[in-house]
């Protein structure tokens, strides 16, 4: 009899949906699995706020823990941040799954992650924090069906929601700024090389040219005085550095990875962005040559949101969370407080 009652109790508690305790210093992990990939989501910060900001990292293949440092420290004091490693990125795992790495699949993954956050934190207000490639992914998710109804708002940070425009504007920004800097006598040799290359190559017709121009864009930030990343790689973190390394290598140093990255070059969500009606905060670094501020202007023009605000930070390149850390967090807090 005792055994039966005990078994019933175990069964009943096993069936009960377990919701994590809300805390001002949450440290939670869960995984979302689907189509061959197991993706970790670390929820850290103030979950008692009932606001969860889901980090949609860049890359593709970068991993989310790169944002879990001074760049988001103040946000974590006020809200919970969910650091999600996309499939074949960061500490995500799986067996033979690379054939499933497609943008539509990743959009499906984002949908699943948002659903699971809603399931685990039933009354939470969810915002997206989408950076760079994450901006493309988030845009693809938001224009699809009713997905945006699960969110209170989204924050696009130097997001590449339109790859063809990113490529052509990156080239244009490098030529314009480079010519101006050459005239001023700043880093003349370096800028001449960049300008010469950009004038003679078309990134929309050649993937190699696109990759080379992206590399020049990163160098150009340094020539404009944008400080390097202060955070460095976090080796001792829950995001296994060997997994990160393997995933990064697979995407950027194998033909299968190159094929995937090349497949993104034609993706353009600008014509559909009028479907997005949730509050939108667009944050850009003034010296971002990788995804220039003109992409922010394009998003502002195309979005169907009643609230759409573009802020351009004066000391930043492609990562304003590094260059203008405090200002950017202030702006995000203002936005979240207004729409949570």
């Amino acid at each position, binding site marked *: 009899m005792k055994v039966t009652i005990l078994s019933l109790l175990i069964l009943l508690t096993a069936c009960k949906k*377990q919701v994590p305790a809300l805390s001002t210093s949450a*440290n*939670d*992990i*869960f*995984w*979302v*699995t*689907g189509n061959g*990939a*197991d993706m*970790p989501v*670390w929820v850290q910060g103030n979950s008692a706020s009932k606001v969860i900001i889901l980090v949609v990292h860049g890359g593709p293949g970068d991993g989310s823990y790169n944002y879990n440092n001074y760049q988001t420290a103040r946000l974590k004091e006020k809200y919970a941040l969910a650091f999600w490693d996309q499939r*074949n990125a960061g*500490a*995500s*795992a*799986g*067996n*033979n*799954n*690379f*054939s499933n790495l497609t943008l539509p699949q990743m959009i499906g993954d984002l*949908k*699943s992650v948002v*659903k*699971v956050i809603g*399931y*685990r934190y039933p009354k939470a207000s969810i915002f997206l924090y989408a950076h760079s490639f994450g901006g493309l992914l988030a845009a693809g998710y938001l224009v699809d069906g009713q997905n945006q109804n699960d969110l209170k708002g989204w924050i696009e940070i130097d997001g590449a929601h339109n790859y063809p425009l990113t490529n052509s504007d990156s080239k244009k920004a490098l030529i314009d700024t480079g010519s101006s800097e050459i005239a001023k006598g700043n880093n003349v040799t370096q800028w001449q090389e960049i300008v010469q290359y950009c004038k003679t190559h078309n990134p929309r017709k050649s993937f190699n040219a696109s990759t080379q121009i992206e590399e020049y864009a990163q160098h150009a930030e340094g020539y404009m005085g944008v400080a390097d990343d202060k955070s460095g790689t976090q*080796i*001792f973190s*829950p*995001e*296994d*550095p*060997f*997994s990160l390394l*393997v*995933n990064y*290598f*697979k995407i950027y140093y194998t033909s*299968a990875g190159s094929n995937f990255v090349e497949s993104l070059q034609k993706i353009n969500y600008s014509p559909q962005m009028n479907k997005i009606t949730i509050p939108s905060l667009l944050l850009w670094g003034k010296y971002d040559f990788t995804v220039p501020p003109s992409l922010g202007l394009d998003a502002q023009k195309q979005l169907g949101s009643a609230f759409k605000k573009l802020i351009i930070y004066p000391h930043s390149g492609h990562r304003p969370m590094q260059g203008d850390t405090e200002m950017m967090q202030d702006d995000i807090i203002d936005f979240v407080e207004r729409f949570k």
Partner: protein
Amino acid sequence: MWLYHCSKYRQTNMRDTIKHSLAVLIFLLVSTHIKAQDPVRLRPVFAQASLLYDFPQSFGVITGISWPFRTIVKSRIPGKSFIRRKDRFLAVEAGFYRYPFNYTGLLLMPGYGARHYRSQSFFYETIVSLGLMRTFYDGKVYDVNATGNVTEKKLYGRFYATTHLSSAFDFRASKLITLEVKPSVWFQYPFDSFIKPHLSLQAGIKLETGKRMVR
């Protein structure tokens, strides 16, 4: 005739002497080799337990046992006591490690190795293992179906094949107890359609649980 007979006798005698001398000489030269092929050889069987550190922040426990199946003794310099002994063995190790806020890995590693004796108190091993790994993720695992319904997956994880290359350094503390340090590089595959490397270090003890007759 007598001389012929005597000469014939002497020839036979000489031939026998040479035969015997050669036999003795060969025996003396190769006596150690013959000893090495002695079929009745007792070699130690070890059971081990060790703590595992897997870079960067995983810790666990590994236990195992190794059976020698062959021993080779080499002493090719006559008159010198220099002897090199090597045991070949089969081993099975099993254990687990936990990567906090990531996953727990269970490992089963059958392997083949060579144990090189360098002195009474020190030997080292080189081991190759082909194994199986099962992961279990930290925290809950969820699946979301096409209609957006969320379901929880119990004890969810994945299987991987593994290959381990290890060198163990063993210091005999007593007849029974040996202290061991064992660095390894090992590979987990297929991991995201690729091969994931690991660096690990084991430190523990080996117990001589008995002896086994080997070739």
